[in-house]
């Protein structure tokens, strides 16, 4: 019933809904920002060196279990490295890769979506075919193909994540631009002699910015998951660099006798991605309560 009775101009929706939306954005955004800040500040915190090996302290369980050590709150891995320190330091690289991979996909994807929706015709046909082709390539397989050719490196990883992400932006922004360009104000601008590139960048882009913001947020979660899968398979981050996915690859080998090595990095990924997804959903209903999920 809500769909039928909903107000027709959602942008000016009831203040209460919007306030609740803003509250939800804060409720998920603040913890996420805190986690990010703690990871960034990891070198300033009183933590053991994440790379320091000590075989005598190998595979210590978390501090609250028998045999645990207060110096290693979440225990140690098979080389005696502190799990908590590695999670916090690993978070830095994980976030960095997520943001770089997200941007590398968001910028070209958004521009292609704008151009293809605005000019339509041949450009649109070509871009749309590429979007479909991207969706047809199973992501991890594509990553394997690229990394098999280029070798493992951070730049290869970001390239793969960009190849993975751009199509989603292009698809959604194209659809939005298509409907935007038929709006009277765009006709008015064209009639007033405003050059097409200016209409595109100064008028269309600000009007799709909200959607881009939501996509960017949701995409960060997807990119973190993708990075962790690649690093888990040994295609991503190379030791001694630490990311959460790479930690899970270590943890897999210790699973039967030291569950904490794998459990905590995975928990970190799940928590962050869940928060990011909740934030994205909250932002969407905040910006436009009636907009459907893409």
């Amino acid at each position, binding site marked *: 019933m809500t769909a039928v009775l909903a107000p027709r101009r959602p942008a000016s929706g009831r203040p209460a809904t919007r306030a609740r939306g803003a509250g939800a954005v804060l409720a998920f955004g603040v913890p996420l920002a805190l986690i990010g800040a703690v990871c960034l500040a990891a070198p300033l915190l009183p933590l053991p060196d994440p790379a320091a090996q000590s075989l005598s302290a190998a595979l210590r369980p978390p501090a609250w279990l028998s045999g645990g050590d207060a110096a290693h709150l979440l225990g140690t891995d098979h080389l005696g490295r502190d799990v908590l320190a590695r999670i916090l330091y690993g978070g830095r690289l994980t976030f960095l890769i997520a943001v770089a991979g997200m941007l590398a996909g968001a910028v070209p994807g958004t521009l292609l979506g704008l151009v293809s929706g605005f000019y339509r015709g041949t450009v649109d046909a070509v871009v749309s075919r590429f979007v479909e082709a991207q969706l047809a390539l199973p992501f991890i397989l594509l990553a394997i193909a690229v990394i098999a050719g280029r070798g493992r490196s951070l730049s290869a990883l970001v390239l793969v994540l960009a190849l993975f992400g751009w199509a989603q932006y292009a698809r959604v922004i194209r659809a939005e631009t298509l409907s935007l360009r038929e709006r009277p104000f765009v006709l008015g601008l064209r009639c007033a002699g405003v050059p097409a590139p200016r209409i595109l960048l100064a008028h269309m882009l*600000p009007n799709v910015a909200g959607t881009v913001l939501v996509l960017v947020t949701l995409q960060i979660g997807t990119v973190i998951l993708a990075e962790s899968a690649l690093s888990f398979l040994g295609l991503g981050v190379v030791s001694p660099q630490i990311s959460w996915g790479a930690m899970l690859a270590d943890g897999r080998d210790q699973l039967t006798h030291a569950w904490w090595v794998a459990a905590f990095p995975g928990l970190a990924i799940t928590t962050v991605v869940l928060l990011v997804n909740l934030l994205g959903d909250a932002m969407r209903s905040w910006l436009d309560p009636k907009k459907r999920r893409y």
Partner: protein
Amino acid sequence: MTRERRILDVDDLTVVHQAGGRWGNRRGDTVAAVDGVSLTVDAGEIIGVVGESGSGKTSLAMAVAGLGRISGGTVTVSGVQVSGRLSRAERTRVQVILQDPHGSLDPRQTVRRGLRELRRIHPERTGWTTDEELLAKVGLNADLLDRLPHQVSGGQAQRVAIARALLLRPALLLADEPTSALDVSVQAQILRLLLGLRRSEDLAILFISHDLAVVRAVCDRVHVMLRGRVVEHGPTAEVFERPAHEYTRRLLAAIPGRRPLDPADPAGRPVQVTTASVPGGEP
């Protein structure tokens, strides 16, 4: 009329739309939305185009504005033929006002920023007035300048759209159902504004509407469109009092409060049309 006063000359215009026609899925069906239409507008004239929904009014307007397809015939604005190869100055001789007042303004741009953008693109054409004077011309207060479109009323938004059009000193104002989305009292204000501007600026206005009452109130001459063709045209009073075409009679009969056999009709001329054939019926 001298030749210099001829602003718009549409000659045998045809606009054909592709129906469907998506890439890889072309069906080849076409719709002749405008089919051999000719009309002229002189400076200081308000010329009406009426017709039911889908009769091709907007397609005609878009072709005249240089925003739509021209499949055949010519559109000449102030002696220059409209085509893909017009200079910016030539193209902007026609300005449009559209039906949805809020949709006619960029939702993310204040009125002032929008005007500044136009001034930057056309410095030579826009120096004749200040923002405040311009708004005063359309009956708006200068404190509207820093508002966003959603912070003004529908009537105010339409006035802003008219102001934006006027800023470029167009030879022809093209109004496609400019009052259809407004309530009656605001509608009257906008119409009065257009009538005033026609006089003060010596503007030529092509006024498109499906509302015959409105057309009757403002237009000097009127063209009646049906399925892409002009089936009847002439001075407004003449067409309204002595409609020659059956379709015009039906349209007239559909105006609320006016019946084909109205005894108060000054012409008092009986029209052979039964109420049964009237779309929408008697009120």
